[in-house]
């Protein structure tokens, strides 16, 4: 909002269309601005509450004694760490710890592969001139929008006959199908932004190409690559459809583990422990995302695809 008193004054309701260049304009303008900032403040509070309240509820419930699962007191009551112990224990046949490790491995391998392949493609798309560039970009965007079920059916058959169900590659390959396109066009957007002229300038200043790359390009590109890596990792971490169908216990990912979380008896649904497991799975992501907020928002809007 501009700091200059808005020449366009309005009625108290702020709905008038006509210009009023009278002596009261300033006062009215101030009130109008104050009204707007009150409205903005209320809206902001509504947004924050709407976004955070369910997450807050998950945390509150995760610390609540299981006997009071459906207590609706909006703050911490019947506080206990038991649910976290339950969530992480393997006594009930849940292996959240192993699932975390699986998701970490699958996410990391997927991310590394996607970066290894994607960096070169993104460099070419951002920096080089060639025909069919639009088509390549279109293919990559289209691929990222590809419905998972269309891959799932054939993969289920193929992997079953290859004995791949319950292996890491059975999840990494499908994950690449959406993480690689994401990587390529997020990186492409970032690379377009980089001041490549500096490279030339460095060369003119007597740097060898290798030096120019190491001293100028690498430091410039590192944040972009890092952000892209986070986005690709999150995308893989959050995948559920394919993971839920192509895993066995040994390679179960966190999303599958949480969806199928069981209680001490075969038919039990331990909400409080599930919420605790949810917090365990989510907190690292939320912290990561909040720390790298700015870059992630930049990467998201560049990529334009949900993780």
């Amino acid at each position: 909002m501009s700091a200059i008193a808005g020449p366009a004054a309005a009625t108290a309701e702020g709905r008038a269309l006509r210009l009023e260049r009278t002596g009261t304009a300033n006062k009215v303008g101030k009130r109008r601005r104050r009204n707007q900032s009150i409205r903005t403040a209320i809206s902001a509070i509504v947004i924050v509450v709407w976004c955070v309240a369910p997450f807050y509820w998950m945390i509150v419930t995760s610390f609540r004694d299981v006997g009071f699962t459906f207590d609706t007191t909006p703050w911490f009551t019947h506080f206990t760490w038991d649910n976290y112990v339950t969530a992480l224990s393997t006594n009930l046949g849940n292996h959240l710890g192993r699932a975390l490790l699986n998701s970490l491995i699958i996410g990391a391998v997927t991310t590394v592969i996607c970066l290894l392949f994607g960096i070169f493609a993104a460099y070419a798309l951002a920096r080089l001139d060639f025909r069919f560039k639009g088509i390549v970009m279109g293919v990559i965007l289209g691929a990222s929008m590809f419905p998972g079920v269309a891959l799932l059916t054939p993969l289920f058959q193929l992997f079953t006959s290859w004995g791949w169900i319950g292996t890491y590659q059975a999840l990494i390959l499908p994950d690449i199908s959406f993480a690689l396109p994401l990587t390529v066009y997020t990186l492409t957007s970032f690379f377009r932004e980089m001041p490549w002229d500096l490279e030339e300038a460095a060369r003119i200043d007597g740097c060898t190409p290798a030096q120019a790359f190491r001293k100028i390009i690498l430091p410039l590109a590192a944040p972009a690559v890092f952000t892209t890596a986070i986005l690709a990792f999150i995308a893989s971490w959050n995948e559920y459809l394919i993971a839920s169908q192509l895993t066995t216990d040994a390679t179960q990912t966190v999303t599958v583990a949480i969806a199928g979380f069981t209680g001490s008896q075969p038919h039990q649904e331990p909400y409080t422990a599930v919420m605790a497991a949810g917090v365990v799975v989510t907190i690292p992501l939320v912290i990561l995302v909040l720390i790298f907020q700015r870059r992630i928002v930049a990467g998201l809007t560049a990529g334009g695809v949900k993780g």
Partner: protein
Amino acid sequence: MSTETATPLGTVARPPRSGLKKQQRGQARWAIWLILPTMALLAVVIGYPIVSAIVMSFQKDAGLDSSTGMFVQGGFAGFQNYAHWLLQQCASSGGTVACPPGSLGAQFWNAVGVTFFFTVVTVILETVFGLWMAIIMNRAFRGRGIVRAAILVPWAIPTAVTAKLWFFIFSAAGVANALIGQRILWVSGEWSSRWAIIIADTWKTTPFMALLILAGLQLIPDEVNEAAKVDGASTVQRFWRVTLPLVKPALMVAVLFRILDALRIYDLPAILTGGGGGSGNATTTLSILVVQQIRQGPNSASALSTITFIIIFLVAFIFVRFLGANVVRTQESQQKGTL
């Protein structure tokens, strides 16, 4: 606006200093080698499965040999698997009958309807709320950082966790009912189950829409708005006449992405309602139907997943063709203004 001034596709974003043809050809050769690995990998992880799905979709699923009671291979099916879904025809002794309720085949058009319903409602809600959130976030006020951080929370939570969380919130004795003082059986009613999913999806995805739209909003120079103010435009007028047209390219791309994403919705209904609700299938989307079919008959499932893929492709095509959502170009131009 910014879209119009974007460089035409197929030419260089930043023309090389010396526009020599030779250099361009060298670049093209380089580009091929740089892009080839990615395209090859995509061919392996997407192309190969798709082709096998299409091949499978023309095979019959294994059936029982009535004399031995053992399974035998089905053989070539022609378009039978496709007819099974599209016409809802089920095989019967010696011919076909309309698929009876309680068979997956009877659910195809219902699933199409449910999927499109979710898509339309969630995309509209998320666009409207996303726009609102973006406009708020585009204003300067104390605590804007907090709003921007808060908005990332739903995005960062995996959908599977989101589904469990809302399942708990929407349980009969849960907090949603406590807040509204009702005792709605959310996941069981025909419409309540759908709204439960829509609410959860809106919560999860609106922030993402808001961020995309915000990026578009930030491209609008302050002067444009100021000029409109000077001309005496009200807030509402400025929104409709200035903000919206200017943010439209970014908005269209965001909407396209959301539509394609919503058409493949699986995680939320699968975990939150299991596809149930109403008389049992109120929230069965196309993706859920495919997953249910996979173990009952993979070849038939391949036909269904191919149909799903074609539907999504057609929607994208129509959207791009008639509503002019130019993904690539908007990506490029938007990029110049943000960051």
